[in-house]
């Protein structure tokens, strides 16, 4: 029982992190029609900027703020430099463009910093645990969960209550329709990329907390892939589906790691992705995906 509760917290915490990444992907997809393969590099960039600033002796809290800020700027620059020229082309074209951007950014980090793993000095308090009612909770898990939930709630509030949120949700429903209503889609896209950068940045901070500050040039890959699969599982074009998919993936990962025999733990990712493919066998449009009826 105690173990179940601990795993539950762990699952929620990892799931919330994936949800942040997946929501960022989904927001860009709904407003721009782009599946951003370079989304994971926003996580990597945040981590390396945080690392660079802490090496210079800047306090951790300031360093992560710098990391978040860089993530937002990087996302906007990505759109401006690489993605805007392929706007309106088939989704495959923009996907492959982001594929190339991802490769270039990883290579740049290898060239500028190092191909090897580095460690970010973090707030040491994060490494501890709290004992509540006989249960041991690693602090990073609790903090991750709290921060991720606050970020998700803030996003929900923004999407539901503000004008720009309304426009983004409208775009998710019907991008052409929103354009016809006179929404400046250019501004919408910039905001969407900025938000996706911020969400990826927050996820990066949480991932660093989880891994004890260990970072490498390819660290963005697995969270991004999981987020991709979360988006597909939740249903393309559905923002709620992305969040749901993220939580499901987090839970699956934590439970499989806990219950699989030691020799099979390495196969966790493979098993999760196989389960997702089976779900899609039953529901090809994803859990919350709608079948899009084309205008004939």
């Amino acid at each position: 029982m105690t173990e179940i509760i601990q795993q539950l917290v762990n699952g929620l915490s990892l799931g919330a992190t994936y949800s942040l990444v997946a929501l960022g992907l989904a927001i860009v997809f709904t407003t721009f029609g782009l599946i951003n393969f370079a989304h994971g590099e926003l996580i990597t960039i945040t981590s390396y900027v945080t690392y660079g600033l802490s090496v210079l002796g800047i306090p951790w809290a300031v360093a992560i703020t710098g990391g978040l800020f860089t993530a937002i700027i990087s996302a906007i620059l990505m759109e401006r430099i690489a993605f805007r020229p392929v706007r309106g082309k088939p989704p495959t074209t923009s996907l492959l463009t982001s594929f190339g951007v991802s490769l270039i950014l990883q290579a740049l980090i290898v060239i500028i910093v190092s191909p090897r793993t580095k460690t970010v000095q973090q707030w040491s308090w994060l490494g501890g645990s709290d004992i509540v009612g006989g249960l041991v909770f690693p602090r990073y898990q609790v903090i991750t969960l709290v921060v991720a939930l606050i970020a998700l709630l803030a996003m929900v509030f923004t999407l539901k209550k503000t004008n720009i949120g309304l426009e983004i949700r409208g775009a998710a429903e019907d991008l052409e329709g929103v354009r016809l209503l006179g929404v400046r889609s250019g501004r919408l896209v910039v905001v969407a990329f900025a938000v996706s950068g911020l969400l990826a940045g927050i996820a990066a901070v949480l991932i660093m907390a989880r891994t004890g500050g260990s970072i490498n040039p390819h660290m963005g890959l697995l969270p991004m892939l999981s987020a991709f699969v979360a988006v597909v599982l939740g249903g393309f074009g559905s923002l709620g589906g992305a969040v749901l998919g993220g939580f499901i993936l987090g839970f699956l990962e934590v439970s499989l790691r806990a219950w699989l025999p030691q020799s099979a733990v390495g196969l966790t990712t493979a098993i999760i992705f196989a389960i997702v493919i089976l779900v899609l066998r039953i529901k090809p449009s994803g859990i919350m995906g709608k079948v899009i009826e084309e205008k004939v």
Partner: protein
Amino acid sequence: MKKVAKRLDIKRVVIRSVLLTIPLTIAVLVATGTGGSISRLITVAMINLIIVLGIQVFTGNTGIVSFGHIGFAALGAYLTGILATEPDVKGFRIPDAPFGLSKFSLGPVLGLLVAVLIVTVLAFALGTVISRIGGISATMVTLAVLIIVYTVMNDWVAFSGGAEGFFGIPVTASPVLVFIFAVFVLVIASVYKESIPGLRAQAVREDELAARAMGVSPPRTRLWSWTLSAAIAATGGGLLALFLGSITPRDFYLKLTFATVAMLFVGGVQSVSGAVIGVILITVGNEIFRWLSNGFTIGAITVPQNPGMTDIFLGLVIVVTMISRGSGLMGSREVEDFVIKTKKSTHVDIAESRKTSFISEEIVSKTLRADSLSKSFGGLLAVKSVNLEVETGRVVGLIGPNGSGKSTLLNMLSGVIPPTSGAVLIDSNEVAASSEEASREGIARTFQNIRLFGDLTVAANIQIALDSVGTKRANPVKAEAAVSSIISKLNLTDVLDRKANTLPYGLQRKLEIARAMALMPNFVLLDEPVAGMNEVESAEIADVIKMLAEDLGVGVVVVDHDLPFILNLCSKMFVMESGKLIFSGTPQETRQNEAVIAAYLGSGSN
């Protein structure tokens, strides 16, 4: 009587294969002449070509980007390696392999064969999921496939030897053997692209809805393409194992994925020739950047060693290709397009085909009926209990203001959308609500917003439809003669070799009619056939529609806003307003009916 288009243009395939074999021949001669690292580089490049062609067969024809094929190459390599290696060698790496794999060896030839067979079966099973998804979601699933394979190879140590890889595979693949396989795969990819199954996949890529209306099943088409291409990729992987003698999971992960994507797209994903060009360009470029990344000195400037240089090169190639054209250097062209002049490949004999019925010798009399069809979207009732009837050999008109439900009714009649209630009947048999089913039952259609297979030739557009039902109708020869007659009537004879999206608007509309008629239907539904046409063109279309009904015995439903055109053409009119049928009768009665006049004048529409 010649066919509208040849089923397979052998000449094209032969010329292409010969031309593309030239650079491969030079490469293999250099490889066998030099040996050492150059030979190795060239042979690996030819193996990469096999894998890239495998991906091209799927991605080029269906338009779905796949990362999963690198996973199939990995599986092919590992299975070949494990099956081909001698038990005493395997004992060291994987003594506890499952299925007793460490106890026996099949040898390289049988090993490769069995490995490819296993991967093909696995790919087929996976394909049943992916082919139903389609589009960009399918791409994401293929990515999941790659990661699953990588994780299994990396972490199922008992089977694969784990991250350190598997070695001791008998090195049996020579450069010449790889060359032979590469040429063979080149021919397969070319034949597939030009054959009916390939054309069907391309039709689905161009317009899924129209493909279905032509009787093509998108999932089935994608599934075959996927399975064939997986088998090719697995062969490439198997050859790599037999050439290198050792493999690691990392050999088949993101680096190879990025490289093959760059090779495929820089040359042009829709082009087999493009794959060859892409492999050459990327291999050469990669070598140059690998050399540069070792550090060099120009005058006073010293550039230090940079391990990431080749990645930057690949990334830039991908981004620049996408931003500049998106379709690569070749687009959908092939090498032979620069050599052979396009000529009229088709001979159409009009005299012979006069007055031949599609259906059979005797006159078939059937009736297509909408039996109180209703459709609601959400809560909104778009069509309310409409009855409509057309007999073979008759032309009926369907008019009404914009938004009155005409297109929705047409969509239900042609199976594009299922009715909320009511049924579509031919005589007294219900027609299932799917486009493929409707087209098989003899209901063809055109679309209001033209939906051609834009990147395919006019002949291919027609051939796809002809082929999906052709042989099932009573007399295929006569039927094709009739189609030829329609083609010449519609002035499409001279443009058969042109791509559909290069035709002027009027001809595109005509091609849609010809394509629908190539299904040899009993009934054809024409959605605004003369929209945007001038009077001369309208008159031509009217002539053709009359011919369809009178000479070929087809029942025609015409939707249009051009009242003089439609009232002259039809023997009976149906008028809709706000989803309801408000009138039916002769054109004469229609002109005088108050309700009709009110509906048209009242709505402010013409």
